């Protein structure tokens, strides 16, 4: 299936989802759905660097929060339309992704992973100490109630996030089938042999970190409008780091389908759990599932389905 056709199918599905949600006539669907869509983008972005290229990023929260805080910064300065803020968030996080990669990707993957963790903490410390964006007290963003053509503002945010989902899934799938995808896979499989075969590993790794960071930043840009009150502890929250790792690992890291499945399943599970049990227990479940899947089903749900289908074919 050519990428163009895939894109059209995605857009069609997205349209169905949006108009279907409007028919339910309950704004809660949009609020909960926004979170799930956000996770799809984060999980897909993480997987480009993690699943495709083999480099673990523990600092997804940093890139996400950068996008969110870029929005807060501009909002106080000169309010811009959200699509532009999304682009800005993407650029800022993309640059930081590039910078982090440039500093650490010549070392081993483990050092990159630790550096991403370090990045998250350093950025959080900066933000906490920066009063212009609210510091530790947080920042309020007043969001309008309605927007022309669509109606309730939350539906507009939902639509934007849906667009980001379409973009990131299209990019992920496009990479998988391209020369770039081969390059990423060789870096994951054996970086030394990749270099010896002519793959410019450092350059490709930088592409992966920049792209992954940019997508996460784009997902973070509308967040302040969604949540209304942005605090460093919520923007840099550990649940973003865990979820962006758990969702692709549980869904399956080898294809674009994995993060999608992981995000929908875990995202919905968490929405239900947060409402019925507690948010701490819900995170515990995610963590336990991550550990369990990583040990028992390393190729995730997609892997399990593939094994099952192969078993039936015999």
């Amino acid at each position, binding site marked *: 299936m050519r990428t163009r056709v895939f894109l059209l199918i995605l857009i069609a599905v997205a349209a169905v989802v949006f108009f279907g949600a409007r028919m339910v006539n309950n704004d809660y669907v949009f609020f909960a759905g926004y979170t799930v869509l956000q996770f799809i983008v984060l999980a897909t972005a993480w997987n480009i660097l*993690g*699943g495709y290229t*083999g480099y*673990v990023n*523990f600092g997804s929260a940093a890139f996400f929060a950068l996008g969110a805080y870029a929005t807060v910064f501009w909002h106080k300065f000169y309010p811009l339309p959200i699509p532009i803020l999304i682009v800005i968030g993407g650029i800022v996080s993309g640059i930081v992704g590039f910078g982090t990669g440039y*500093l*650490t990707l010549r*070392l081993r*993957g*483990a*050092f990159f*992973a*630790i*550096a991403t*963790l*370090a*990045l998250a*903490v*350093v950025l*959080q*410390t*900066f933000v*906490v*100490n920066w009063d212009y964006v609210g510091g530790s007290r947080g920042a309020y963003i007043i969001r309008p109630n309605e927007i022309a053509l669509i109606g309730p503002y939350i539906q507009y945010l939902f639509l934007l996030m849906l667009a980001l989902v379409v973009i990131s899934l299209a990019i992920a799938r496009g990479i998988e089938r391209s020369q770039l995808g081969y390059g990423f896979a060789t870096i*994951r499989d054996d970086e030394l042999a990749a270099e010896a075969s002519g793959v410019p590993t450092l350059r490709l790794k930088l592409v992966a970190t920049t792209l992954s960071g940019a997508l996460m930043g784009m997902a973070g840009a509308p967040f302040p409008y969604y949540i209304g009150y942005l605090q460093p502890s919520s923007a840099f929250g*550990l649940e973003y*780091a*865990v979820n962006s*790792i*758990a969702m692709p*690992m549980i869904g399956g*890291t080898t294809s674009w389908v994995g993060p999608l499945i992981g995000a929908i399943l875990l995202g919905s599970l968490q929405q239900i759990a947060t409402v019925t049990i507690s948010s*701490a*227990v819900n*995170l*515990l479940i995610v*963590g*336990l599932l*991550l*550990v369990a899947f*990583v*040990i028992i089903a*390393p190729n995730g749900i997609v892997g399990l389905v593939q094994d099952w289908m192969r078993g039936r074919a015999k």
Partner: protein
Amino acid sequence: MGLSFDLLINALIAGILLGGFYAAVTIGVSISFGILDIVNIAHPAFIILGSYIAYIVNSRLGIDPIVVSIAMLPVFYLLGAGVYQVYYESFERRGQEALRGLSFFFGLLFVTEVMLILVFGVDYRYVEAPYIGPSWRIGVMDFPLRMLVPCVVALVLFGALQLFLSYTFIGRAISAVAQDQLALRLMGASPIRIKRIAFGISIATTAVAGALLIIIQPVEPSVGREYIGRVFAICVLGGLGSLPGTVIGAMLLGIIESFTATFYGPSWAPAVAFGVLLLTLAFRPAGLLGR
């Protein structure tokens, strides 16, 4: 002039004492990461676990936290051996350490923190001991005992481990396993068993480090996260695999943090370690004493 000299010398002392404690925290990672090449980012989780165990026993039975931690050494050793076995079977053997091994430890770190929150809540916990509170004064120099005692214990721990690694068969096998697994096998020692013992020791140190931590400061579940950066910053700064390097790196970091907190305020402290780490990785990844 006299006032700032006081401030300076005491910031230095606090930094050195803190550094000693940081060495105890990091020595386990020096073994698991420096020698065994296992990126155990869940190391701080075990330390916090050690802190909470010290807290429970101390608050119920009044036993000194350091004594508790020594009693817990075999338990933590077995825990470490068990974790290594799972890690080996699931990841090392299949060559999947890079992605899945890391995620595994991350999951452990996360699960431990959340479980502690569920059981103990987010309130700060602390222990009581006769040396928490008083200080020794020598002239203008101030030695808070709650920092001096952990520093001394840390140096004893370091000394014991260094002797073990240099003078016992198993200790030397551990140092060798990083470099030549074939030679080890030819000598009749199973590299897996040696690595399991080493990792067990690495986690056993966290029992002590945890007790020292809760002596120095009150503890709550998310405190572990600050230590991830510190631990790896020290390891990298000191040079992987070098135990003396770890101590020097720890002292350096302790001093830098102490001066930053004294002159710029404590809210910048978390960034210091991670900043040091990023800078070291960018400019001198082999560390100061590394191989």
